[in-house]
């Protein structure tokens, strides 16, 4: 497998490429194993996904071999038995038993053994003093907190590369499923219970994750990003998550903050250190640095942010945020303020 995962923190879709006129050819290239920047399980960057990728290729080649056997028998029948002069009336029970039950049994027992080994590997606990990320699923976004940091972020999980990080999963409403194809298979978020999984990235990079259990109207827009970075960068990032949000520095930012604190925004959102402590929507203390708006619905830039504030229902119909009655004159300052929160 060629390892070409992008190492920037921006996923491929944010760099708008011209639409390929030859999607078929493009796809054929992907089939050859070069899955480019897609969040492909066959392009693993984590310990868990690498193990499953190995299992897949084992299963794949066994399937190819058995399929070739079945097709050869079928082809033989079609070539030599079509209009054959004589019908044979035997009962080849030994052939049916060996080919249909005996050989498959031996193959399946072996494969089952490999599968058990991988199941045990995926289920291994990350160790008592491992870093713990608390992830809570909401319709339709991910709340992310760290043991040892007062703040919260949304739809973006930073982890130190090369370390096994425990992820504790809860849901605030319905079932969701935590899936980062390049790092780790799925674990469901079960209402009323807590589940655990772990992430271990083997190399720097940003890895797209997405909710994989149908969770209602906007299940399609419940993505997140796992950013694996060197320990020092991670520590710096986590320290910012523990500190108050960046204070306004320009006049525009100050006006924007006022609009934010006095308007409807404050009812649902939090910005640390400002006294605005709404708990319904995502914490916005570092919203300016995030990879997307609306859990992967649109890129995080000024235009999309303005559109989202004015009426997010046109972007992500059904989400919990109603259209905001923000004065058109005040919107630019509000956007400036939010984008300054890094």
């Amino acid at each position, binding site marked *: 497998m060629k390892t070409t995962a992008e190492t920037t923190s921006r996923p491929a879709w944010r760099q708008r490429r011209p639409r390929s006129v030859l999607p078929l050819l493009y796809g054929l290239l992907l089939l050859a194993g070069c899955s480019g920047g*897609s969040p492909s399980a066959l392009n693993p960057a984590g310990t868990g996904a690498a193990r499953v990728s190995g299992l897949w290729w084992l299963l794949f080649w066994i399937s190819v071999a058995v399929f070739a056997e079945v097709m050869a028998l079928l082809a033989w029948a079609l070539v030599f038995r079509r209009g054959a002069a004589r019908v044979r009336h035997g009962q080849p029970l030994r052939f049916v038993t060996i080919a249909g*039950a005996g050989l498959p049994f031996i193959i399946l027992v072996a*494969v089952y053994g490999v599968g058990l080994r991988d199941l045990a590997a995926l289920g291994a606990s990350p160790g008592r003093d491992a870093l713990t990320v608390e992830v809570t699923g909401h319709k339709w976004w991910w709340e992310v907190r760290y043991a040892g940091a007062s703040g919260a972020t949304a739809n973006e999980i930073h982890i130190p590369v090369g370390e096994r990080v425990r992820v504790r999963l809860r849901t605030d409403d319905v079932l969701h499923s935590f899936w980062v194809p390049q790092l780790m298979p799925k674990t469901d978020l079960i209402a009323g219970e807590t589940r655990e999984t772990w992430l271990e990235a083997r190399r720097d990079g940003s890895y797209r994750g997405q909710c994989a259990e149908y969770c*209602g109207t906007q299940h399609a827009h419940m993505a997140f990003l796992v950013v694996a970075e060197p320990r020092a960068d991670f520590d710096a990032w986590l320290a910012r998550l523990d500190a108050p949000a960046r204070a306004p520095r320009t006049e525009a930012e100050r006006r924007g903050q006022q609009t934010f604190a006095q308007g409807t925004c404050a009812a649902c959102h939090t910005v640390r250190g400002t006294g605005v402590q709404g708990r319904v929507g995502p914490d916005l203390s570092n919203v300016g640095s995030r990879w997307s708006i609306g859990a992967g619905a649109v890129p995080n830039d000024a235009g999309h942010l303005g559109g989202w504030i004015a009426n997010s229902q046109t972007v992500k119909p059904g989400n919990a945020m109603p259209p905001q009655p923000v004065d058109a004159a005040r919107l630019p300052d509000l956007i400036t303020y939010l984008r300054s929160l890094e």
Partner: protein
Amino acid sequence: MSTTTSTAPAVGRDDLARLAEHWAEPRSLRSWFTTVDHKRIGRRYLVTAAFFFVLAGLSALVMRTQLARPESGVVSPQEYNQLFTMHGTAMIFLFATPMLFGFGNFLVPLMIGSRDMAFPRLNAFGYWVFLFAGLFMWASLPFGAAPNNGWFAYAPLNQVQHNPGLHMDVYALGLLFLGISTTSGAINFIVTALKLRAPGMSLNRVPLFVWAIVATAFMVIFALPALNADNAMLFFDRRFGTHFFDPSGGGNVLLWQHLFWIFGHPDVYIIVLPALGIVSAVLPAFTRRGVVAYSLIVLSIVAIAIISFGVWVHHMFATGLPQLSYSFFSAASTVITIPSGIQIFAWLATMLLGRLVSRVPLLFVIGFIVTFVLGGFTGAMFALTAFDQQVTDSYFVVAHFHYVLIGGAVFPMLAGIYYWLPKITGRMYHEGLGRWAFWLAFTGMHVTFFPMHLTGLFGMPRRVYTYRSEPGWDGWNLVSTVGSYLLALGLLLVLVGVVHAVRRGRPAPADPWEGDSLEWSTASPPEPYNFPVIPRVRSLHPTWDARTAESTTTGATADRVLSDGRRTLFTSELDARTERAVAMPEPSYKPLVLAGALLVFFTAMLLAAYPIAVVAVLVVAATIAAWLWPPRRPDEELGVAS
């Protein structure tokens, strides 16, 4: 080996006239509503299920159109979520099982040498309930109130606080309503196959298709209660404030999943087993010999029916249950592939020894083998927990179960449609049209669903109404959409072929394929009484067997003619020794009235019109009482014919 049987019986003209008089149903409006003839009911099942298949298929085409490109706006998310839910629910509940029940209804009495099902009125009732339940569920779509929670409707998203409106009430009540039909049909198949077989058809001479239908019927009886309990609790949660699935009230959301899959995994085999039975029924005519390893296939059918109840947790491998239980269910799910392997190699051996007759039904059987084997491989992969956790709920699983269900159920059904069309309609189909239909459907199927393996591995989750452009997603989604149009075109040609056959097809002889089972010894289409003389079965391939043929001509005896009334033969369960003749019921309005009253009841419950529901219950009780009221002249068949 094959002996073309003439239908010219050695029974007298008076006998034939009396049989016709007792069994005839005039072509009138009244008879349309009151019929109890299993062949008419079977045909209705087939046509109605095909109609629901078209609706569910059109839903899929809209979905594929929406997904052809990233971020397109063909439908809204709310519409898309109703469409994929109705697509799955209708394909599983309103198409697959009723379609196979339609084949069973038409064929089981003919294959076992009986004049009707054991309970003809119950049979009619089952059809009306199926029709009404299907319309009940589809009627919600134009109102924007169709189920929208996926076909397995997980809690707590199915609860009223997360999903207000009638959507999931339609789902719960619709499936409870439909369950009445499925259960009564299953009971009818079991009793028919055990008690109404022609004398001499001991268990080791029962056609494989009938074995498959009976195994399926037993599975329905054991699996369906779990689904019914689930839906009853769901309706109570939603309507009357219970908390079965609400964790804040002490309920458990995984209870829903356990009960659903205790039904749901057997249901996969409830769909696939009869379809595999069709393959075993079709092959002898096109290989000119019996299927290899009859007893191994019977054992496989029974083994699948039993093991399928022990694998349900593989649908829950990502829910975080204990690893020990996962390793058990992983083993059971691995083992269940073996009985299917035995059947595949038995069919291959049959083809390798026989003389292949290359006609459309055989093409669909070959298409079935290619496709179903591929679906089987991915199925065995899903048995391994670690792999399952990576690809479950992605497009990979969508690819997998369409390979299993289109390959393992739809292709055999299509083989069955072309094979039995002459028997059902009395007309031959157009061979060229059929070949075009096969190649388009086969190609379309693989072009649609093979790329979904890739999009799934590339990280695309299922049940998303749209997606942002990702490398590896856009192109393959477009390919899938193109393939789905091809598949639809192929299926349209099947429909054209059937209509063409009915309108313009040349008349079919009684036995156009020189088939081996008893339905080919009746006229095409069969007389209302099926058999002028109920045959005495002497082998596993009665129509190829001169002694069985003789039993209906020169060897006919009065105890198997039974022309003095509407009667058929009762035989013993294992050896099919003649016990006695039994009277079969006349046409009746009661099945229709009872099903109609139930429709009123379920509609009233849906709309919370409880007084009307109470009235409907009274009508149901009165109709059942009238139905079961003992006849004035008690005779020996009391309690046999419904």
